[in-house]
């Protein structure tokens, strides 16, 4: 097949379209002016972001929520993927698939309605716990998909061999299959972390006064217009997420 130069030129344009906006935003986060005119290199917006207590507190909340939600969704999702790999369950697989395609706004308001209904019987209110539960729920499907894709590359006869040699089912899982899928599990965890950390729509609906997350603060500022401090945080998020995803991709193909 001969290479078509027109196609290659188009591809360059498409990649510029995909990457330039984030690149430009990151470059301007180092601009010393608060306006969109380059005046010189400066770290003042990074320093301003680090000294803004609302931002740092929200960043902490986001990290805590994402870490806890990742831990739970990865463990639960891995076990679930293993169970589905052994023998699929259409109702469960279908529900997880549905949760993945449900518009976020619908997931968010249904959780809000659910929490409010539960709170009639319990003395509780919206807060970190409601956000974490929501995140575990929507991260699960991502984890199951990534782990099950990895499981499909595993030779099922290895477990049979282990069972023949006297291992029980748990041992066969723990010492044979789990080590083989571990890179996939870690990749799933990293993915869950980025999905959780980034969520705005669902989080903003089920968050309480003590659980404002970083995307919520960014969103509030963005709605009022553009702010160089947000440019700086955005650049940090892009770099952070980019590294996580690249690690995750490496692990998935490892």
């Amino acid at each position, binding site marked *: *097949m001969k290479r078509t130069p027109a196609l290659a030129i188009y591809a360059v344009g498409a990649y510029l379209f995909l990457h330039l906006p984030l690149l430009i935003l990151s470059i301007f986060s180092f601009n010393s002016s608060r306006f*969109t005119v380059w005046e010189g290199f400066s770290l003042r917006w990074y320093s301003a972001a680090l000294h803004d207590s609302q931002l740092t507190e929200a960043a902490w909340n986001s990290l805590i929520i994402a870490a806890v939600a990742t831990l739970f969704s990865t463990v639960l999702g891995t076990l679930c993927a293993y169970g589905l790999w052994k023998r699929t369950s259409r109702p469960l697989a279908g529900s997880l698939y*549905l949760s993945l395609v449900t518009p976020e706004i619908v997931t968010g308001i249904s959780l809000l309605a659910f929490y409010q209904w539960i709170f009639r019987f319990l003395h509780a209110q919206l807060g970190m716990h409601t956000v974490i539960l929501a995140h575990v729920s929507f991260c699960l499907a991502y984890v199951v998909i990534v782990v*099950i894709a990895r499981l499909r590359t595993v030779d099922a006869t290895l477990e049979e061999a282990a069972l023949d040699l006297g291992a029980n089912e748990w041992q066969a899982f723990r010492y044979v299959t789990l080590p083989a899928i571990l890179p996939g599990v870690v990749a799933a965890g990293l993915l869950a972390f980025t999905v959780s950390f980034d969520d705005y729509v669902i989080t903003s609906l089920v968050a309480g006064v003590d659980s404002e997350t970083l995307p919520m603060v960014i969103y509030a500022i963005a709605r009022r217009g553009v702010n160089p401090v947000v440019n700086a945080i955005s650049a940090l998020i892009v770099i952070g997420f980019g590294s996580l*995803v690249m690690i995750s991709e490496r692990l998935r193909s490892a």
Partner: protein
Amino acid sequence: MNRLRAWFLAPTWTVVITLFLAPLAIILGYSFLTRGVYGGITLSWTLESYQRLIDPIYLEILWRSFWIAGASTVLCLLLGFPLALFISRAGRHKNFYLGLVMLPFWTSFLVRTYAWMFLLRDTGLLNTLLQKLGVIHSPLPLLYNDGAVILGLVYGYLPFTVLPLYATLERLDRTLLEAAADLGARPWAALTRITIPLSAPGIRAGAILVFIPCLGAYLTPDLLGGGKSVMIGNLIQNQFTTARDWPFGSAVSLVLMAIVMVLLFVIARGEGEGLL
């Protein structure tokens, strides 16, 4: 095996039932109830929330959502197809080029939307640049309109079309193209009569994958449309916050869910289920 498997599935079942299915059941119930005087819920059954949807104001929002999601989907396919074709012919660098498409996709959706606000607003980079160059004298209204929303959605979901298109183009039988060339077909004829028809599954999958999230979009129309470009997602959010009409908000949510499910299970015949 069955006992261990049951223990392994149980926690996820618990989460899915309590935090996904039960909440959906609750809004299903709410959608048939009546709004209370102070915005609460009154226990009297009615179909009023569904009947209100026929109001021209809401039909227009529905229509606008379909229009914006449809336009974004078509643009994604048009922009994504040549890119997928390029990647499928890129030889041993395929994975690198594919990764380059997916990378921005996994970096924060919110930040990517914000990046366009930075570029498009009145004092944003594009307007500043154009004014400096003397092309325009007053800033162009690039932000806060339907066009900006569509741009944001296309930018956000382009990878969703490239992936399935690439997957089908990759499997395409090259010998068919060689045969066509031998028989005198020009590249354009080979493209329109062989490559495009044979990549129909990828086109359908890509279209559904983009159309569904675009239809339910909330964040993009809110930030880039500036409240002027109201879509279904914004209507739902508004009913649960400012308007405090939960039954109506629930009814709209369920209609949206119904549309999504029809698209997925009837038109796409649950293709994505193979993932699980």
